[in-house]
């Protein structure tokens, strides 16, 4: 009963028809983009794609853990916005204040993640409802703090979001680090194994001696911390603390995670898939911009990509609902 309560749909996790579908899609979209728009495959533009994708990549890696655990976290978008506002206000463009700002960012991310986890374990409210409530609370907190853009990003954080290291954009390292660390944590550690076990069957995991509450708490904490890092990066992208910076990011993150092959029913997660899906979305948006397609048509295309990709990526044997 409790297992079913955390799953969005009470279906046993079915294997994907194509675990490599998203990588094929990434290659296809990349090749199509390069052929269609000549200026896509230039180093400067590819750096743009990396810079534009870093925020979502970090956020989606964190979300992968929550979803693989059979839950969902809608609060990350507003958490990202809150972190951006607080960090920028604290830095006010001064390098000396970068360390305290980063400290505050991590503390806020950790704190909100802990709060989500504790409330989830105590109240037994469905995570979708719980974190939607948290989304609303955080939005209120942001706007009580400031209703307009505030503060200034310090040069170090600007470098993190837009700079280059040995000619390669820092964002590439950020995305790679998030992907590798996430993949290692999910597939190669005891915590990752336990997390997937809890996502697959909470009762089974409990009987195997795992404490599901602890695992779920840690999943929310990971999601909160990744949202804090994403908040710092977006502060670097925007140059200031914009209170609406995180609006809608939670849904983009969920879309990326699911396109990447992680099942909403929990039990399975693919960090490389998540990162590939983020890049697919980033490339699609970049190339449509280069081709000067209207933002409205881009939204329609993005929606259709999501539907098409989920059709390609669907479970082999499932009952409709």
């Amino acid at each position, binding site marked *: 009963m409790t297992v079913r*309560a955390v799953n969005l749909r009470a279906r046993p996790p079915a294997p994907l028809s194509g675990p490599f579908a998203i990588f094929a899609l990434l290659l296809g979209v990349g090749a199509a983009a390069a052929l269609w728009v000549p200026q896509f495959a230039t180093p400067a533009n590819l750096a743009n794609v990396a810079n534009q994708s870093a925020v979502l990549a970090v956020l989606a890696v964190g979300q992968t853990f929550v979803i693989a655990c059979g839950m969902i976290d809608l609060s990350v978008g507003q958490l990202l916005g809150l972190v951006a506002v607080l960090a920028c206000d604290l830095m006010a463009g001064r390098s000396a204040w970068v360390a305290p700002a980063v400290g505050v960012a991590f503390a806020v991310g950790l704190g909100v993640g802990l709060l989500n986890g504790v409330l989830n374990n105590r*109240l037994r409210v469905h995570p979708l409802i719980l974190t*939607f409530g948290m989304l*609303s609370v955080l939005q209120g907190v942001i*706007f009580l703090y400031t209703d307009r853009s505030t503060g200034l990003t310090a040069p170090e954080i600007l470098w993190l979001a837009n700079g280059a290291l040995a000619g390669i954009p820092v964002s590439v390292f950020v995305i790679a680090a998030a992907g590798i660390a996430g993949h290692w944590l999910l597939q190669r550690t005891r915590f990752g194994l336990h997390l997937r076990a809890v996502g697959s069957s909470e009762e089974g995991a409990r009987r195997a001696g795992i404490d599901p509450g602890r695992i779920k708490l840690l999943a929310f904490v990971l999601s909160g911390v990744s949202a804090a890092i994403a908040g710092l990066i977006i502060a670097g992208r925007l140059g200031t603390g914009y209170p609406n910076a995180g609006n809608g990011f939670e*849904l983009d993150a969920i879309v990326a995670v699911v396109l990447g092959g992680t099942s909403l029913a929990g039990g399975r997660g693919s960090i490389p898939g998540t990162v590939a899906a983020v890049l697919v979305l980033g490339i699609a948006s970049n190339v449509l911009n280069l081709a000067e397609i209207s933002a409205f048509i881009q*939204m329609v295309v993005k*929606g259709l990509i*999501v539907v098409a990709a989920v059709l390609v990526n669907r479970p082999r044997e499932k009952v409709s*609902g």
Partner: protein
Amino acid sequence: MRALITRSPVGSAERLQGAAIWVVLALLFLLAAALSEAFLRPIYLFNLIRQAAPVGITAVGVTLVMILGGVDLSVGAVISLGAVLCAVLMNGQTSNLATAVLVTSLAGAAVGLVNGVVIALGRASPFIVTLGIAIAVYGLTLLYSGGTARGEVSPGFREFMNYRVGGVAPVLALAFLGLAAVMAWLQRATRFGRSLYLIGSNPRAARLCGLPVAAVTLGAYALSGLFAALGGIALLARAGVSSTYVGRGLEFDVLAAVVLGGTTFQGGRGGVGGSVAGVLVLVIAFNLVNILGLSFYAQLMVKGAIIIAASAAYEYVQRYH
């Protein structure tokens, strides 16, 4: 174990679970009445119901989909589409009124039908499909409206919807209650309604028994789209102007109300009546916050806290009643 027992389809335990939300509603109402005498005045009560109408009408449709074990996140986008489309088609002329309402309803049902087709025939996750369709519908709405608030409501439209029958009950409030009553009858007394519960509790068994699973799924999603469009029209009747993002995020308010009302994400349980109570709980809570005189941003925080607390209270009543 208790959960397993209370999940049995018949018996007083099930009935008590259904009553949980009404207990929460009654307690909240008593609290509200103790704090402000306004809650005892019939006119104010009907104002509450009118205020609940847009989310409430939408929640009625989403309830059907969730009984089926699905979910519909596109309703926020369809509410926006409904409000914009209806306002543009009315174009300030009374003679356009009937056409506008009819075309808007059909458009909503069509979006729902697309959801249903992809989910039933493509066997894809409803969560992601409806999320993707939501993005596409926002794009289409923006293309249609050009990104600005277009259209003008017909003279007499708002006056009629807000006209108080017998000097007390606004037409809009009665329309909400009427639609809910019709759907409550539909789910209880028709073959379609019973099929929803059967498919929701065990899709595989339902298919093996020869129930028309695909047809019922299509019908439920089409109705969800139709009711979201009607919710959009209700929103237009209250606000008088349309805007593209008027429904953004409302899908989660709707979900909160439906889940509060006892319809679960795994399907097979709950009903329209509970959802109506769930919406009223949320509306009374928001009005209490208003009466306390908090700023809009503080209201956002309290709204989130209330959604979490009410869900937790509901879970508690359900488990220990």
